[in-house]
Each structure stands twice: as structure tokens, then as C-alpha cells.
């Protein structure tokens, strides 16, 4: 399924956040959007998930505008996990994940065999099966996020949009969540679009990287081809050196604050990719 935006303009009231942006999400790949705060990356994700109606332009799924289709129909194609969702107190993991099946259900059919299979698969994929009866608000941050991701997985959509799925998680849980995302992409071929803050993680996990500034795309493509010191300067207004990640060989961004710039050798100890 191809999700794309054409000449998309997004605004809150008079404040234009994204200005005539066009982008196509590569199917079957992991796309990561990066950019400074308030650059419009979450707004773009919200528009791709039809949470925000465009001021101008269109978001299309296989050529058809997602804003003119019944929202339930779109919900069978695009799954969404917003930033820091809040579960009602006391809801159990299995109850939360079951609600992900909502777009496939109707008044009388609320627990089909397909629902059961999808929920079990989602619980297994996120390692949450053993926690199924626990209340979500008693889980650790990482488990809680995995429970929400399980809900989005159970929705069983070819496209999955995640807004900062690793925010507020400690390092181990961040990696846990990102590995789960890669599993989904590799084993089921799901298309993933996510917003991430950590540039090095973005470079590691993205097949396709989109760097945004002031509501527009500065550069996009394979991380190795787009990330360099100039891009980081343009997008984040930060001086840095870009080397190769010693584990994956993907670009590794090493920022330099005012106090470190003078000390840094022209070509630092960071090997080039």
C-alpha cells in the first residue's frame, strides 16, 4: 500500500506548520522522521494518520484521499500510536490489545476467531503474553509501551505510524521497542513510519530517513546517503562530526557544543563510513 502526501499544507488556526510538503512512504520499509522540536514532524504524522485535516493538498492511500474515506475503512489500513497515550486506570493488557481489533468488528461480532488469532499474535510479538492479565498502569514504562504497540499490531494494518515510541523510556526499553518494530517489518513486511529523537537510533533503524525543518523536508533517503555534518547544521543548528557507527556502520552523529569545538581535531577519531 502506498501512502503519500501531495502539496500538503497543515495549520493550527492561522499558524502554518507544514507548507506544501510532498512525500511518499516507501512500502515495506521503515521510514524515520527526524527534526528539531516544532519542525512539524508530529504534525505531518498526524496528517498521514488523518488526525488532522489538511489546509491544502491531500494525503492519499493507493491514490484515494484518506480524508474522504470512512475512517473505519482507513483504520483497516493505517494503524497509529500517538505520543504518550494514556490508558484508562485498571485496564488489563489483553483488554487494551483487544480494543485494537475495533475496526474489524461490528455490533454483534466482537470476538471472531480472527480477532483471537490477531490478539494472540500481537501479545506474542511484543513479549506481552505472560503479562496479559496485568493492569497496564502497573507495568514498567517499556512494558506499557509494548502493550500499546501490541494494540496497534492487533489492528493488523499494513501501515503502522508511531509518534516517538521511545520517548520517556530508558535505554534498554528503547532498544526493546525498536527491535520489536524491526521484527514486525521484517517478518510481516509491514510499512512503518516513526518519529524519533535520537539521531543515531534513527540512522540505525531507518531504511528511509526524512529530515524536516520549518515544516518542510530538507533531505530524504537512505541514512548513509543523507546524513552529514551539513545536514545536522541545517536541521538542528548544531556543529558535529559524523562518523560510522562501530556496530552497524550507519552514520553516527557526534555533536560538538561551544566548549568542545576548539578542541576537536579537523578529522576526529570517529572513522568515516
Amino acid at each position: 500500500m502506498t501512502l503519500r502526501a501531495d502539496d500538503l499544507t497543515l495549520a493550527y488556526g492561522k499558524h502554518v506548520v507544514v507548507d506544501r510538503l510532498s512525500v511518499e512512504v516507501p512500502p515495506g520499509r521503515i521510514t524515520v522522521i527526524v527534526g528539531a522540536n516544532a519542525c512539524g514532524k508530529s504534525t505531518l504524522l498526524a496528517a498521514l494518520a488523518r488526525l488532522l485535516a489538511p489546509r491544502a493538498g491531500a494525503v492519499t492511500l493507493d491514490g484515494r484521499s484518506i480524508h474522504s474515506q470512512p475512517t473505519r475503512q482507513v483504520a483497516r489500513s493505517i494503524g497509529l500510536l500517538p505520543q504518550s497515550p494514556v490508558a484508562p486506570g485498571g485496564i488489563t493488557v489483553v483488554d487494551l490489545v483487544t480494543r485494537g481489533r475495533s475496526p474489524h468488528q461490528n455490533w454483534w461480532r466482537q470476538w471472531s476467531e480472527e480477532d483471537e488469532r490477531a490478539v494472540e499474535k500481537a501479545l506474542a510479538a511484543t513479549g506481552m503474553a505472560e503479562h496479559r492479565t496485568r493492569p497496564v498502569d502497573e507495568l514498567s514504562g517499556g512494558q506499557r509501551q509494548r502493550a500499546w504497540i501490541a494494540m496497534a499490531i492487533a489492528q493488523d494494518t499494513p501501515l503502522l505510524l508511531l509518534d516517538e515510541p521511545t520517548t520517556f523510556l530508558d535505554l534498554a526499553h528503547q532498544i526493546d521497542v525498536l527491535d520489536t518494530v524491526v521484527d514486525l517489518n521484517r517478518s510481516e513486511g509491514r510499512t512503518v513510519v516513526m518519529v524519533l529523537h535520537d539521531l543515531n537510533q534513527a540512522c540505525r533503524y531507518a531504511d528511509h530517513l526524512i529530515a524536516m525543518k520549518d515544516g518542510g523536508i530538507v533531505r530524504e533517503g537512505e541514512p548513509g546517503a543523507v546524513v552529514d555534518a551539513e545536514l545536522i547544521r541545517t536541521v538542528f543548528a548544531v556543529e558535529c562530526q559524523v562518523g560510522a557507527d562501530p556496530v552497524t556502520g550507519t552514520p553516527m552523529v557526534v555533536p560538538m557544543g561551544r566548549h568542545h569545538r576548539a578542541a576537536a581535531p579537523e578529522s576526529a577519531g570517529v572513522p568515516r563510513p
Partner: protein
Amino acid sequence: MSVSLAAGRATYRAGPVSGVLSPRAVLTSTVLAVLAAGLFLLGVATGDLPLPLADIPAALVGAGDPATLFVVQELRLPRALVGLLVGVVFGLSGAVFQTMSRNPLAAPDMIGITGGAQVAVVGGIVLGWGAGLGTQVLGLLGAFAAGALVYVLSMGSGHGYRLVLVGIGVSWACASLTDYLLAKALPYQANQAVGWLFGSLNERGWHHVRPLALAALILVPTTLLLSRWLRTLQLGDAVARGLGTPVGAVRFALLIVGAGLAAFGTAAAGPIIFVALVSPQIAQRLAGTPAPPLVGSALVGAVLVLGADLVTRHVLVSVQLPVGVVTGILGAPVLLWLLTRANRLGSGG
């Protein structure tokens, strides 16, 4: 048909029909239904002329001696039915508002809907507005006008707390207007108005039962049909939209049914306070569900109103308290207990 029980929930499948139930919620609802039925029969059986409990079911369907039939069908049944239905509609209305706003303080008597009915009815008594309409129609009009005002003023924001804040503002404005009207009123008018303001089941007849029963017949099933969307709305607007919930339309429909339930209840019995606020919270704790269960909330409402009515008629018989005072006395401590527990306002407490 297959039923299975695992991980604290029961699932069933019969041909194309399937679903998930919480055994504890089902059990709670069953017990509450039996309790409500018992209080209902007790309410019909007891009074100045006590009747044997065993004669009541027959008399309800029109069998028995004429004296019993008259007492049951003309005097006591309308009162008991108004009590039952008012409890059901208030409990359900509270559950709808609390779930859609994700706030345990949202209830029609807190967010201005009951206040609108008060202004209209007291205005009718004191100023003679629409005198021909009677308190029931005036109460309905006032409740819907206040509901529309709250909806318009809290529009454009997906946040539940805004509905509650706007509602509290409207509620206080209505309370002040009601006070003003009472201050202006002649003694006999004030007397009449105060009698209505407390919420009462005294002297209820079939003309109170009919509109309420008709409204309940339409609004209760509609609310239950909307419950599917309540389950996704509980996860927040963004998640709900992502799961294919038409959030704006559902919110509007819920406001209409929630206000409608409260409006018809208030029109029939006056504002019986706290029932809509506490019933969903009590039901949620009894059933152990993450949000107020609709059927459970309605049944707790019925038990509360029918129980409070029995208390006013038999325990506090010398003071002749209206039922609304008793639900207030019982409800206030429950509210205080809830407030001390709701450390995260807006998260469902």
C-alpha cells in the same frame, strides 16, 4: 455456541455472533438487577396499607381483588416505576458523561444540564413562563438548552476537562439564576419551587411514567449501541480516531443521549442529585472494570433511588424528606471519598 473462560474474561461464539464479557461484571449486574427488583416490589408492597409481597406480582399484571389492584396500579406502581426509571436514566447518563470526558466528576448535575432544567422550571413557577407547558416540558427544554450551550462552548477541543469546566460554569450560572428567581418569588411559589428542586417521587402518576418510559425505551438501547465506541473513546481521541471511531459524531451522539436521559429523568422527578455522579463510580468499583459499565451504572442508579425512596417513606417517615435529600446525604460522603482518591483529575480517577 462455544463459551470459554480464561484470564478473567469469558468469550462466547455462536455462529456470526461473538463477544467478550467480564464474568465479574455479569455477576454484579445480576445481583444488582435482583436487588433492584426486590426494592421495587417492596416499594409497591409497603405503605399505609401494607400488602403481602406474594400478591404483588399478580397485581402488577392485573390480577387480584379490586382494592389491591387500585392501590398497586394507581397509587404505588407509578411511583415505583418513576423511581426505577429515574435511577436507570440518571445512572446511565452519568456513565455516558464520565466515559466520554474521561473524568469521574462529569455528571449531568455537575455540568449544567440539571441546572438548565432548574432555571426553566423555577422560572415557569415564578414568572409564569410557558405556564401551559407544565414542569415536565419546561424541565426538558431547560435541560436541552443548557446541554446545547455546554456543547457549543466546549466545542473545538477534544479534551474532556474543557467540557467539565464549561459545564461547571454553566451550572453555577444556572444556580445563581435559580436563586435570583427564588428570591423574587412569592411565598407560595417559592414553596412549590423548592418542593420540585429537591427531587421527589411523591404524587407521581402515570402522566409522569409515560414520557419517561417512552424516552427510556428509545434512549437506553441507543446508549447501549453506542457503547462499542465508548470502548475506543476511553483510550483518548487520537487512539480512538486511529481505530476508526468517528470521534466528532460519536461525541455529539453521546452528548444528545446523555443529556436526553438526564432531561427526561429530571422532568419526571426533579433533580435527584448525586445519583448520576456516584452510580457509575460505584458500579465501576463493584464490577472491577476500567470504566463505568453502562448496565451496572443504570442498575446502581435504580437501587439507589428505590432504596432512598424506601428510606424516606419508612425510616424518616416523621420528617417527610424528599428522596433527593436522602440521595444527597448518601451521595456526599461517596463523592468526598472519590475526590480524595482522584489524584489525577481527568485520567478517570
